């Protein structure tokens, strides 16, 4: 019997339809259907000037939009061969990591809510509010920041922001230990997530899984370490890797990533270089192409951009990690039961905005 989980369902993941074929309670097949949120972002980006297309890229993954706007701007800068000043690079690392913290906190809330723990939904959201307040201070908006520009950032960060971010990151670091107490040391959470939704290394690599889901299978691959960009080569951080490949391992990887990102932000706040926050950028792009890859909170995101010689792009293509992660979902669900679906669906962290573009 085919059951439709979606396109309207109360789990807070976005607009998609996960069709599963069940034999009683056991899942024997699954067929995710996406595309309900397709907005032709890539096509729209062809018509607009580079700077005008930035708000479009923001709305790809609305939870982690610093990462997506910076990805696009990085690609445009590579296309136009623009030199970015040091301070801008460090600011970029700082805000991208802050957004990673916010995104993972939101993921944690949604994941645990699906499993049934109502309190643990609100506590990470509350932490995320602090991060959002920080970003609101420098950009002026809580979610659609529109912060990077070609060559740097639109506004500078000041000392108050740096000081406050250190305090907030310290607080979030402390609270992650509180979350561990609520979740790790609880038998009931373990029983719902350990051994559930297992995928092994070979299948994960074959399916193109990237990001925390891949690192939970034992593959030590992080774009920030493999091909460091901006100031990632100079900050000191670890990449958590777990072996089991189940929901619990994915949860652990992301929790530790929150801690690592907090440390990165504190290092950036301490070591922020002086200087310009934006460089000179030309108005038109050459008729060539550029390609850039980043570590998004969901995995490896890429942007390919080709210029026309004019003010807009000929083609923009985004590689969305969540899109590819969803294709691994049928493998993870096979053989498990219907109540495991929210746990597995939540653990791979889909954001349908970037899946459908």
């Amino acid at each position, binding site marked *: *019997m085919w*059951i439709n989980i979606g396109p309207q*369902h*109360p*789990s807070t993941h976005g607009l998609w339809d996960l069709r599963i074929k069940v034999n009683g*309670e056991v899942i024997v097949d699954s067929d995710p259907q996406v595309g309900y949120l397709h907005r032709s972002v890539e096509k729209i980006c062809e*018509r*607009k000037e580079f*700077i*005008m*297309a*930035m*708000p*479009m890229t923001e709305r790809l993954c609305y939870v982690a939009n610093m990462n997506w706007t910076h990805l696009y701007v990085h690609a445009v800068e590579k296309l136009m061969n623009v030199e970015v000043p040091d301070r801008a690079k460090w600011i970029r690392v700082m805000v991208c990591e802050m957004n990673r913290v916010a995104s993972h906190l939101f993921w944690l809330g949604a994941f*645990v*809510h*699906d*499993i*049934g*723990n*109502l*309190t*643990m*939904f*609100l*506590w990470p959201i*509350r932490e995320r*509010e602090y991060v959002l307040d920080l970003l*609101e*201070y*420098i*950009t*002026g*908006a809580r979610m*659609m920041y*529109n912060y990077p520009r070609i060559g740097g950032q*639109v*506004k500078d960060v000041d000392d108050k922001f740096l000081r406050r971010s250190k305090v907030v990151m310290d607080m979030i670091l402390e609270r992650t230990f*509180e979350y561990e*107490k*609520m979740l790790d*040391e*609880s*038998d*009931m*959470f373990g*029983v*719902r997530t350990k051994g559930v939704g297992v995928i092994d290394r070979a299948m994960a690599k074959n399916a193109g899984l990237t990001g925390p889901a891949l690192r939970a299978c034992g593959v030590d691959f992080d774009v920030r370490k493999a091909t460091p960009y901006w100031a990632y080569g100079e900050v000191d951080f670890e990449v958590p890797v777990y072996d089991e490949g189940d929901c619990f391992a994915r949860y652990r990887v992301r929790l530790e990533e929150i801690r690592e990102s907090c440390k990165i932000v504190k290092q950036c706040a301490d070591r922020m270089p002086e200087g310009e926050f934006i460089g000179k950028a030309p108005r038109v792009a050459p*008729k060539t192409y550029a390609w850039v890859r980043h570590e998004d909170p969901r995995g490896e995101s890429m942007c390919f951009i080709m210029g*026309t*010689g004019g003010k807009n792009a*000929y083609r923009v293509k985004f590689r969305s990690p969540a899109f590819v992660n969803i294709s691994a979902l049928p493998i993870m669900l096979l053989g498990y*039961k*219907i*109540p*495991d*679906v*929210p746990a597995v669906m939540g653990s791979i962290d889909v954001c349908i905005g970037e899946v459908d573009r």
Partner: protein
Amino acid sequence: MAPANPFDWTYLELCGALNDISYHVVYAVGDLPHNLWNILAASLGMRDRVLAPGDMTFHIGLADWLFVQNREIMVSLIAATLLLMFSLINVLMFIWVERKLLARFMDRRGPMVAGPFGLLQNVWDGMKLMTKENAHPARADMFAFFLCPVILVGSAFAAAGALPMSPKVQIASIDLDLLWVLMLFAFSPYAIFLGGWASYNKFSLIGGMRSAAQMLAGEVPFFLSVGGVILITGSFRFADIVAWQDAHGWLIFAQPLGAILFTIAVLIELERIPFDLPEAESELVEGWTTEYSGLRWGMLWLGGYLRGYVGCAMIVLLFLGGWGMPNYKLGELPLLTPHIIPPVFIFLLKSYLVFAVFVWIRSAYPRLRTDQLLNTGWKRLLPATLVNIAVAGFLVVDQVRPGEVVQTPFGPMSQETVVAWVVGAFTFLAVAALYSMHLLPRVLQPLVSTARMFVQTLGWFGGRPFTVLYPYERLEVPLSERWLHGLSDEKCISCARCCRICPDNCLNMVESQMGQHPDPRFTTRPALDASHCMFCGLCVEVCPTGALTMGPNFELAGFSRDELYWSQDQLMGYDKKTMQEHPAKGEIEVVTWVDKLLYPLLTPVLQFVTPHNYERAKGSHSDANVVSSAVRELAGGKEDERELGLIMDNMSPRSKKAVEMLLAEMRTRRQGPRDVSAWDLRHERKHEPKGSGFGETAPEEDEAA
């Protein structure tokens, strides 16, 4: 004979008193026509028309039947009605406790607005449910669909009736009280299965089956965990069990294992987290309750919380001493004085405390999968209950020497008590030793974390929840916030860079009507279509003079499409239509505690008294100019604008607003639809260069192909 002081009456004596009152009322009403006729006839002097007591009397047969002396049907009806009212109010209070307490565990407040401390929230929610349609699937089996909430709620009320609340309030007491209540609980799997099946919906069916399986797994431990209690006290009657506990100490010390097992079994029966998979939201929408709406769904909630009350009350009666308070003395000093608070309040307080523990458990844990739950039920709970019964049976029943008094460090106790407590401690420690690897750190840690959060958010200890109580408290936003646009007339040089950069084509350059035009060369100003604006701030960045700004005013909701088109004059501040108002706050200025108390109570009434305000707030997007008839009356039926203008100066602000809307409506009626609407202005696209649209590039210019 009933004692003189009404506070010393038992429940039945109270019902008897009400019965007497209602007897007199009913017969007085029934005799009314007779009496009126006699008064009329006597006063008119027509003595031959006066009716004797037996003539032409139409005694209402129902009254005769109700008040028959040996049957006392009315007393039963009054008893049942009082029970109903009490149970309903109790359920509302239980739901209130759940919402507020759960909120504090989650670092937020619960209902705040409806009534003081949000006490009336559930009343309004119930009224809301009453106004909703009782929709049902077309092919549902209506008899079963109808029957499911009836069985649930009916069995819950019957169980609530069997619970005594104090020595004086024993509503219905039979020899097999405990068994009766346990059996009434057992009706629910049947009702839920019926409801799930009758809904003609895959998800409801699955939910119903899961729920039935879960409840069956919970039934057996539920029944057996009270086995120890029955063996020790020797009776099924609640009054006897409470009397035993008064004499020998609370059964939670004699049967700790039984108490814990019973609590877990009650949680399984009530389908509360951690056992609420059948109605889990993230699984299959709402599970077996998916197709229920309106008051039927309200009945399901009512039944659920009523069974919650019955479960908590049973735990209190069986394990926590019922309505008794321990009579501990420290030497000669009484530590607790049981006779000041009436036993009913003690009983209810204890039930609410037990329910608070249920809410605490709900806040701390995720839910278990059905098969994991069944695993727990059959493999863990059931053997523990059997161990409990075995130990109670062998040791307590055989070893006790009734009547003998033993000296203990706690004072002289009867030997029954000592054996019971020793047995209880022994069983508990033995089973805890078996499970101790897991129990304390791994199961109880979340409870500790949530309790800490609860203490942190309480004002008593200097904390407060994280939430901001909008609109009474406002969130502080930084000045760099990108919200409401502002335009400076002096600085704008009509360069239209803002219009060109807007990714969504929201801005248009329009001749300014009310502007001061400091430079006669630059008379056009940008007007903004806020319904398309995404507040990206690009227009502010490119403005060369800094004329266009964005500020921190975020209360920008409009109730019609016209309100979301901000003309250049509005942006500059000359036309104060929507810019200065706070639509979110509505028109009621809430300042003092009186306002906070009164307006939430009066709001449901006010919406019928001041329809123009609430019609506007209901968001009639396409017909914002519809004005209700009440406002027309207010305007006195006058259509002439000049006459209306004369009246308006003396009116209250609310009435002025209403009349302004009336005038606007009259104007639109007279002039017909506007030639140019906001939509047209937005789509004019004067600032886009030709050839930049799709397909507009000539082939020889398109070199990228």
